[in-house]
């Protein structure tokens, strides 16, 4: 999926970012980018997805949060933000209402913390679950209550 | 024999015994009939395993219900909770006392028979509300509230439409009403107009009274789990269930008596005509039940007050005019 021209222009002029699939954006500008994209007509939120990358020599232990938005019918843009473990990324709930449940789910499963989220609780797993199962370092044998 | 017939107490006891047992058995097998009937509508065979064509299914159901543990919720109002199912049953059965089954066959020939039946069956709301309240369950409470609201509303068109045969027949005694319809002059057919409309309204209001679809909002299993019966298990549930069927049966008996000429019919008059007619109404109720969807509570209150009540009032007026001038 190629990035539409006006988005490429927007990225270059306003954010100084390279276009791509996905676009990588820094944490302090992700809300601004989301708002700009929404203004540009990308009002459809496709998904928010996170993935965990354990620490390597070059990078610390971190997660990536990817947002994909769409301008109907076809244009699609994905932008991602890297979040070191233990730190947080600003939430996009004020921009896209749908980020509410999406970010909650990713917080629950991957453990990415979205700062300013109105209701950052677990959504899939029980409230007292320990750990975030989709992290690469999650021990599959983690003990939990037998009825869960 | 003559001893029984001469002594009103003995006659009452014997007639009551026969009628109650006959109706209980009928109600039990009407469940079998309904399951078979609904099955046919849905292209499936219905009960087949117990007895020939599943005929013994009610017995199996009964055995199952009796065996169940009798659970009373911890915070329920124990007395009311236990009282509600038998009370509902008694009230439904009491209405049967004044039915003219055939010429001269009336267990208790009250001169206000119709009034008695209507007032007794309107009391059924009380055990329903008792069950809803005493269960200490939110779904049951909502169901009980709905039942109360529904009964208050639908009592009006029920009574008004029952007024039409009273006016036309000139009596509150059911036997007289049936006699007034002799020789095929059934109120549902003659005089044209008020009788037939009142008949439809009466059956619809009876559906609502008996909590049948499309007016079964107190139970509303897709919304309120099981409504008032949520907390009931075993034979208590069975009693509520059976009382509902009995209520439907009583409603169709009453409809046949008031509007379809009771025992009157071509050939020899007798109980067979009453049973045939009420069975047809009974099957019709099940047909409607297994076909229609359910109204929302407020929608069907509106239906009651905006449509049923004015139309039944009009029926009463027309019937009165007919009575005076024709």
């Amino acid at each position: 999926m190629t990035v539409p021209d006006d988005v490429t222009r927007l990225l270059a002029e306003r954010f100084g970012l390279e276009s791509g699939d996905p676009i990588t954006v820094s944490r302090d500008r992700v809300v601004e980018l989301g708002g700009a994209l929404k203004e540009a007509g990308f009002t459809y939120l496709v998904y928010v997805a996170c993935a965990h990358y354990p620490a390597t020599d070059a990078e610390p232990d971190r997660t990536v949060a990817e947002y994909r938005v769409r301008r109907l019918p076809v244009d699609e843009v994905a932008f991602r933000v890297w979040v070191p473990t233990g730190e947080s990324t600003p939430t996009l709930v004020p921009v896209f209402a749908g980020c509410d449940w999406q970010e909650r789910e990713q917080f629950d499963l991957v453990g990415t913390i979205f700062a300013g989220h109105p209701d950052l609780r677990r959504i899939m797993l029980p409230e007292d679950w320990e750990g975030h199962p989709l992290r690469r370092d999650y021990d599959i044998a983690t003990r939990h209550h037998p009825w869960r | 024999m003559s001893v029984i017939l001469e002594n009103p107490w003995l006659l009452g006891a014997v007639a009551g015994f026969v009628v109650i047992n006959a109706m209980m058995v009928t109600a039990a097998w009407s469940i079998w009939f309904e399951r078979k009937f609904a099955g046919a509508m849905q292209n499936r065979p219905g009960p087949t395993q117990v007895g020939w064509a599943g005929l013994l299914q009610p017995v199996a159901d009964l055995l199952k219900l009796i065996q169940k543990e009798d659970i009373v919720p911890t915070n329920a109002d124990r007395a009311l909770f236990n009282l509600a199912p038998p009370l509902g049953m008694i009230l439904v059965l009491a209405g049967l006392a004044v039915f003219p089954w055939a010429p001269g066959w009336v267990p208790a020939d009250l001169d206000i028979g119709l009034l008695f039946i209507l007032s007794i069956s309107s009391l059924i709301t009380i055990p329903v509300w008792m069950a809803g309240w005493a269960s200490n369950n939110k779904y049951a409470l909502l169901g009980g509230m709905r039942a109360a609201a529904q009964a208050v509303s639908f009592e009006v068109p029920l009574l008004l439409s029952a007024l039409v045969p009273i006016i036309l027949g000139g009596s509150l005694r059911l036997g007289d009403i049936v006699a007034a319809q002799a020789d095929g002059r059934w109120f549902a057919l003659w005089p044209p107009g008020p009788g037939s409309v009142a008949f439809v309204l009466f059956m619809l209001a009876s559906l609502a009274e008996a909590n049948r679809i499309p007016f079964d909002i107190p139970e509303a299993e897709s919304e309120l789990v099981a409504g008032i019966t949520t907390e009931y298990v075993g034979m208590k549930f069975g009693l509520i269930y059976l009382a509902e069927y009995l209520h439907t049966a009583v409603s169709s008996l009453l409809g046949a008596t008031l509007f379809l000429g009771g025992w009157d019919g071509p050939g020899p008059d007798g109980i067979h005509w009453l049973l045939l007619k009420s069975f047809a109404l009974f099957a019709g109720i099940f047909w409607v039940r297994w076909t229609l969807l359910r109204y929302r509570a407020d929608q069907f209150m509106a239906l009651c007050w905006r449509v049923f009540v004015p139309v039944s009032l009009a029926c009463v007026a027309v019937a009165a005019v007919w009575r005076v001038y024709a």
Partner: protein
Amino acid sequence: MIGLLQAFSALRITGLNLFRAKNTEPLPWDGGRVRPERYRTSFALVHNSDGDEACIGCKMCEKICPSQIITVVPGGRAPSPNTGKPRGTAKDFTLDVNACIHCELCVQVCPEDAIVMLRVPEVPGFSREELFLSMEKLYANEKVPASWGTGALLIGMQAEGQPKPPPPPAKAAPPPATTAGVPEATPPAPAAGGGETP
């Protein structure tokens, strides 16, 4: 009121259905619906044309099973009692149908067509143990009518008409005895991965 009169259209439909044929059938013991030939339920292990137990204990099914319910204990190479040629054997083979998702992958990967699925409706068991298929039960199931799918046939169907006709069709044709006993030889061949487009 008018709305209630419209209800007659719905009453007509249910009335119509009163006279339609019954659509359900009593369950399985006296039903007798003929199942299509690909119908698949439980499992069986079969003997090959030489009369040997076809399973060579290569553990392919154990590796592919998404539910990880197959356990194979290889018995090592031994001369076949029928032909005398050495071939792999399985000492034990268990399959826990409790967790089976009936995906047919174990049938597809079997190089010897040793495991097949059954074509009869599954009979529910009364305990977990009844649904746990030991090697004896699996070989006893050989007498039950089997589903169409075997490893060779499934592979053949998928490979059919492909532009490059490499090993799989050739593999499907010869009787199992030729490739028998060399489970170690199979892995490298199909591990080519994706990326080839026709």
